[in-house]
């Protein structure tokens, strides 16, 4: 809708107490939004000065910032401010008002005033293009860029017919979906399911091992798979175009941004393989796009378009977090945007309370609940597909495993008796199986190590024996089932030693007692005696209803008879001498609710007992979901840089913005097709520089504003800041967490972050050049041509690293732009 017509305000508001002082620049002063809007009398009467046509239409190319040039003879700082004020008032910006409260002195209030402007002065969104011509102008570039991007992404995509880099992981995980075998990985399943789907669509049967560096056999349609996944990368480019248009960039700026997205070699390179990154990038872009779309709809809340874009933002967040957890960082941007928006609305006194609450509910439902549902659905599908036993079983609870096909748990005899051979599973999240091996502790008692281990292995087997004080189990006699408060001796079957504890400090958790394996079938002491305490049973319920220990469902604790401590595996990792397995110790504190002291019998063998026909083990989805997520979190945190082993591929976050390091994605032999993951220096360096320049520009504007210069029309500053926030804060949220987190990082972690830097480049070019009035059209064209020329030129220079380099690398000279790159020789 068109803005209100400018109204003559020749006569000042009668409520003003300052009529007697006639300010010559009164109207000019009024045009300043910042101080004007603060006055309630203004916002209610909507008086408009004649200076400008207000409100502005959507920021367009033609609009440039206006500067109020001082009238000749106006204030000279040295001259008397009093006289000059009276005459010219070039500094005077206060609307005369009788509301003292409006002008305040502490910073807190300044903030409000600024915000009130934002709510008071509404920007009218650009009307949708109506004519065919406008449609064409808007969409044609997108179409052309998409085609170009198809070409770059698909060109010679199958050139290297070997498993390149992390295809070894993600190709393999995709195969598991086709084979329906349960596996475990630190990333959420959506991306890998898409890989699986892509495999299915292209007719791959899931039988390939995806060993790193292997050649693809005939029956693996790797080209089709790569093409389908590269499509996500292709779509980044049109999204960049529409996003920059939605952010109000001029055409030239939008072109430049899109060209940068099109021509970055790192994005190109990473999109061309069977990896998750193309999807992650795509959904990062859609999230930003949906957010900007939603922002444009903000003046028509609860209209269909508003709902649509809010919903799409939510879905997009759900997808991006379901692909990799780093997607969560872009969610932070949406979160902060939403909070600021709600805070702004909180100050809008005219908004009805009901509407305000509705805003909250809408955001909560569509930006928190909806993404969460998407995330959970992806896990639900994950569990539904992977219903066969596989490599990842042991990360899950025993009960979950019992439901996997090909698992023998369901054949377990139901009730555990003395003489049974069993494995014990720790019920803490990410808990493993009680394990021991012949290696001894290098510290403490130096006896045989006891650990928790995540994989199935004979070293996890224990036999339940009678204590030394009673007669050994009679293989012929009556079967004696294990009850609450029974004293047992647990014998490690491969080594014949007994599970033992004593008053020696545990190797890592020094406050606990060490647990070791000691003695043999004949020697031992009371330190080998453990009291079995039943906590409860998932089927039978409370302890009182559990006569005997059942496999899988009964929750047990082991109390050391002598010391009264409890067997615990609190997810602490042993040093390399313990093979980084999980420490098992004996906790002196009795915490009945600590799941790390809870164990259940997982596998159970006893020839004298009937095989269980138990198929009534049901594992609730939410528990499995939660369990898997905690396990993922635990493993993710365990991916710490190994001090002993220098990882040649890893890089630290500080290496990324200035492109300090690249990454070899495959073998570097002369007859191999080589890919080098490195960005387009023109894009990366300008992106990083633009962030610094942005801070500088904002500071300059703030200082100028503080000094009374009026550089902005109504709403322009808010819009400028809004784009800076999307790009700048987006970058910060995507980048800073990497600095803090302890896990090992690689250069491709920066790729989503880079998108925000590129948006910032576009924004600054737009603001400083393309929308500036200082430059003529011709100059703008020249600058545009040079900037995009450089980007394209550098892209062409480096295209080989993404398209694949054949032959000896030495023959491709001129690629070493920084000495630290290991493109020619490894350092």
């Amino acid at each position: 809708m068109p803005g209100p017509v400018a109204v003559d305000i020749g006569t000042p508001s009668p409520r003003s107490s300052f009529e007697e002082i006639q300010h010559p620049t009164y109207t000019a002063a009024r045009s300043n939004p910042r101080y004007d809007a603060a006055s309630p009398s203004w916002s209610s009467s909507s008086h408009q000065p004649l200076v400008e046509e207000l409100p502005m239409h959507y920021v367009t190319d033609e609009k440039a910032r206006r500067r109020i040039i001082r009238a000749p003879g106006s204030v000279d700082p040295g001259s008397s401010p009093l006289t000059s004020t009276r005459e010219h008032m070039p500094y005077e910006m206060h609307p005369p008002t009788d509301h003292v409260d409006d002008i305040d002195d502490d910073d807190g209030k300044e903030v409000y005033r600024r915000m009130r402007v934002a709510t008071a002065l509404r920007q009218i969104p650009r009307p949708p293009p109506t004519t065919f011509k406008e449609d064409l102008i808007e969409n044609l570039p997108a179409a052309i860029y998409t085609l170009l991007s198809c070409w770059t992404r698909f060109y010679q995509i199958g050139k290297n017919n070997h498993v390149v880099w992390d295809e070894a992981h993600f190709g393999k995980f995709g195969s598991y979906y086709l084979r329906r075998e349960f596996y475990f990985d630190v990333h959420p399943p959506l991306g890998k399911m898409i890989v699986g789907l892509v495999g299915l669509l292209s007719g791959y049967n899931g039988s390939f091992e995806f060993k790193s560096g292997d050649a693809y056999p005939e029956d693996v349609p790797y080209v089709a798979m790569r093409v389908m996944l590269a499509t996500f990368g292709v779509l980044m480019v049109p999204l960049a175009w529409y996003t920059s248009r939605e952010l109000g960039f001029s055409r030239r700026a939008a072109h430049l941004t899109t060209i940068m997205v099109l021509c970055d070699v790192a994005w190109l390179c990473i999109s061309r393989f069977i990896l998750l990154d193309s999807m992650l990038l795509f959904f990062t872009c859609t999230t930003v796009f949906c957010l900007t779309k939603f922002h444009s709809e903000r003046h028509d809340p609860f209209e269909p378009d508003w709902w649509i874009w809010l919903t799409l933002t939510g879905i997009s967040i759900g997808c991006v977090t379901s692909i990799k957890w780093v997607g969560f960082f872009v969610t932070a941007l949406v979160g902060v945007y939403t909070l600021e928006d709600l805070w702004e609305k909180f100050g809008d006194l005219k908004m009805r309370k009901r509407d305000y609450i509705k805003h909250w509910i809408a955001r909560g439902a569509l930006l928190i609940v909806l993404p969460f549902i998407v995330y959970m659905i992806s896990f639900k599908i994950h569990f539904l597909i992977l219903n066969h036993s596989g490599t990842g079983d042991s990360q899950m609870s025993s009960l979950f495993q019992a439901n996997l096909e090909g698992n023998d748990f369901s054949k377990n005899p139901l009730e555990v008796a003395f003489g049974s051979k069993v494995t014990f599973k720790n019920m803490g999240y990410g808990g493993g199986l009680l394990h021991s091996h012949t290696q001894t502790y290098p510290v403490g008692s130096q006896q045989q190590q006891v650990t928790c281990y995540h994989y199935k292995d004979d070293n996890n087997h224990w036999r339940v024996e009678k204590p030394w004080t009673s007669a050994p189990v009679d293989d012929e006699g009556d079967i004696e089932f294990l009850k609450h408060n029974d004293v047992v001796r647990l014998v490690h079957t491969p080594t014949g030693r007994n599970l033992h504890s004593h008053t020696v400090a545990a190797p890592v958790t020094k406050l606990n007692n060490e647990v070791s394996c000691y003695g043999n079938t004949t020697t031992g002491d009371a330190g080998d005696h453990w009291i079995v305490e039943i906590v409860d049973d998932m089927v039978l319920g409370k302890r009182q209803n559990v006569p005997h220990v059942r496999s899988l469902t009964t929750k047990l604790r082991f109390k050391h008879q002598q010391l009264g401590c409890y067997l615990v595996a609190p997810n602490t990792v042993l040093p390399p001498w313990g093979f980084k397995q999980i420490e098992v110790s004996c906790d002196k504190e009795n915490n009945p609710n600590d799941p790390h002291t809870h164990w259940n019998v997982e596998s159970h063998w006893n020839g004298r007992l009937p095989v269980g026909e138990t198929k009534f083990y049901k594992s609730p989805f939410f528990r499995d979901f939660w369990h898997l997520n905690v396990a993922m979190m635990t493993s993710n945190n365990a991916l710490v840089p190994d001090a002993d082993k220098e990882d040649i591929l890893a890089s630290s976050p500080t290496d990324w913005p200035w492109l300090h390091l690249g990454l070899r994605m495959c073998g570097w032999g002369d007859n191999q097709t080589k890919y080098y993951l490195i960005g387009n220096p023109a894009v990366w360096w300008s992106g990083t520089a633009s962030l610094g320049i942005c801070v500088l520009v904002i500071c300059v504007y703030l200082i100028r504003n503080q000094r009374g210069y009026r550089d902005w029309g109504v709403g322009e500053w808010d819009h400028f800041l809004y784009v800076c926030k999307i790009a700048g804060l987006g970058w910060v949220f995507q980048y800073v967490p990497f600095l803090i987190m302890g896990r090992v990082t690689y250069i491709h972690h920066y790729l989503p972050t880079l998108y925000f830097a590129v948006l910032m480049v576009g924004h600054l070019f737009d603001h400083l050049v393309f929308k500036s009035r200082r430059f003529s059209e011709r100059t703008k064209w020249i600058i545009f041509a040079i900037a995009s020329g450089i980007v394209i030129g550098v892209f062409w220079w480096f295209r080989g690293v993404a398209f694949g380099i054949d032959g000896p690398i030495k023959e491709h000279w001129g690629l070493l732009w920084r000495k630290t790159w290991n493109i020619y020789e490894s350092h």
Partner: protein
Amino acid sequence: MSTGARRRGIRLPQPDSPGNGSGPDGLSPRSLTPDPTHDSTVGDEDPRSVSRSFPAASGPPEPEYIHNIACVAITAIAFALRFYKINHPDQVVFDEVHFGKFAAYYILREYYFDVHPPFAKLLLGLAGWFVGFDGRFEFEAIGDSYSQHHVPYVGMRAMPAVFGSLTVPVVYQIMKECGFPVVICTFTAALIALDNGHIVQTRLILLDAALIFFIALSLYAYIRFRKVRYSEFSRAWWGWMVATGVFLACSLGCKMVGLFTFFTIGTAVLVDLWDILDIRKKYPMDVVLKHFFARALGLIVVPFIVYSSFFWVHFKVLSHSGTGDSFMSPEFQESLSGNELLMKSHEIRYYDTVTLKHKDTKVFLHSHKERYPLKYKDGRISSQGQQVTGYPHEDLNNQWQVIPSKAIPETGRGRVVRHNDAVQLLHISTQSYLLTHDVASPTMPTNQEVTTIAKEDARSRYNETLFTIDIINGHPGQPWKSKASHFRLVHVPTKVSIWTHPKALPEWAFKQQEVNGNKNSEERTATWFVDDIVIPAEDEDLFSREGGPKEKVVKKMNFFRKYAELQLLALQHNAGLTASHPYASGPINWPFLLSGISFWTNNEKLQQIYMVGNVFGWWTCVVALSVFTGIIGADLLARRRGIQPIPEFVRNRLWNSTGFFFIAWAFHYFPFFLMNRQLFLHHYLPAHLCSVLVTGAVFNFIAGESINYPISVPGPGMRRMPTARSDVGMKAVIAAVLYAIPYLAMFFFLAPLTYGTPGLNGDQVNRRLLLPSWTLHFAGKATTS
């Protein structure tokens, strides 16, 4: 500032003196009606925010003498509590081990190295010197007796105790200057004066007393500076600003924590400057710049000079060689008289036999005839060459002869080995050359194996036996010297640096340290030096062949280079203090006093000193901090909805003055969360002081609806302004007295832990275990199950 001055009538601004004094006062039309006022202490106010209803001044202001009496009384209490039994224990307590020792070094004038800046330690040294300490006592371990060694420790402890006691009146004055009534000021000062934590920390030979005192003084000086802001560029204005700068430098000179005080004041100054920049203040740009540069001068340049001067004194005093030598660069060491380097450093000539020592781990480059095993445990294969290891003891197998790779003259200076010369190193006892090649080292697959090759086989692999002597910071032609030249040994063909790390090799190498080739040829830890020239190439005296005098002269080194070197080193070491300590604790524990530090114990008398604050007082501070955040949050929300719950001038003070204290607290507290180094409870004491200030202000806010207003010194040419008086009245006094009962009780209850006397039996200790996380000694067994 006297209260009288506040009420003086002030004239209209002089229209023709914009830059001088009348700046902040309105020249805008509105200011012609009511008058600007000056209220808040820190932060800013707009002179126009006036014409709202002020409560009538309730009663006359409190006379100055009441303030004086209260201040003197609380100071006297502070002195009494800090000097009470200051001679007990007559043993070394906690970090007196370090700081007593450092004081002794100043007296002996021996160079030492420490991560803390020298000011507080210089003061301790001065105190020691003053009371006649001869510096002979070693302060070796906690519990060493002072009286047996005739150490005048009471005099040395008196200095921190004086600083600790004087902190109390400073706190009192801060509150007074911020316009709080007597009862609030006394309450606040008492929270410091009777705090067990402050007392125990400030009556021992430690740095914190001086640190806290100067931090408080910086805040005080800045507040005074803020109050005279309407008389800009006046003498008082300059005086208080420079004083702020000097005190800041002093606090930074005590400990690096002073940097946080810099941030606090810096933030306030930025806010202030931002406001001066505001066009509505009518300052022309040149005045704004003048303000800016004045602050840069007073708060950056002056502190820098003062801070550097501490180091200047430090270097001047410590002119002799001491324990800190080896931390420093060779140039630095040669400037210390009696330094080994200075005495025994000689140029190395070709065919000299030398021993090479690794700078960080102090092992010699060693080889013996045993060979690397063919296959390691992890299945990798070695070259089976002769082992080269790091060995910490003197041994014939550490000797290497320097063989030239070029023709050298028979005699003379041409035989001196120089920077960047390529040499071979011949292992004397096995007659083989040092060599490294592209075979993985025993424990690190990424690094190259270092071995030797027999002299007779060496011809075919000649290149692989060449190493360059890369002297650190060396210039072309610089002679290679024993002791003084730190160098890297860079392999010519593969550019790896000979490197070692404290990892022991397995049994087959007698658990000696691994030596390998590090691919980063610039690796900082790959630094070696020649420990000694064992056999000179010519049968000459080492001194005479250099033709120099036998007595070496102490070399001069530029102060600024010394200064820069020490700063850098301190930073590196500070970050390196990550070893765990039984009493170290994380910052999150501090405000709640979840853990203390055991300073000293005496097993016979069951006495102990346990550093922990007055629990009641500290928790009050935590509550006050949360209340403050709550008030601010509620105020923000309310005002967002157009409601003004707090009177304007009260809110102003809340935001600007109390807010300043709050920021000070935040700056002195939160950065610790980012630090990886060892942290202790006493690191919280400066932040605690700031939280105490917040507590006083919050008490005032709760007790009364008004404040003393305005409190700033009016500038020339300002008019009369409305005033307000604080109305806390009797109820605040009663509240304070009621508060004092449990507070004092807690103080006396914990006093045995603070003073280390009297001894406590098991039951008494158990009773004092107020929080289960405390780790007191001599706890009774009965109740710990």
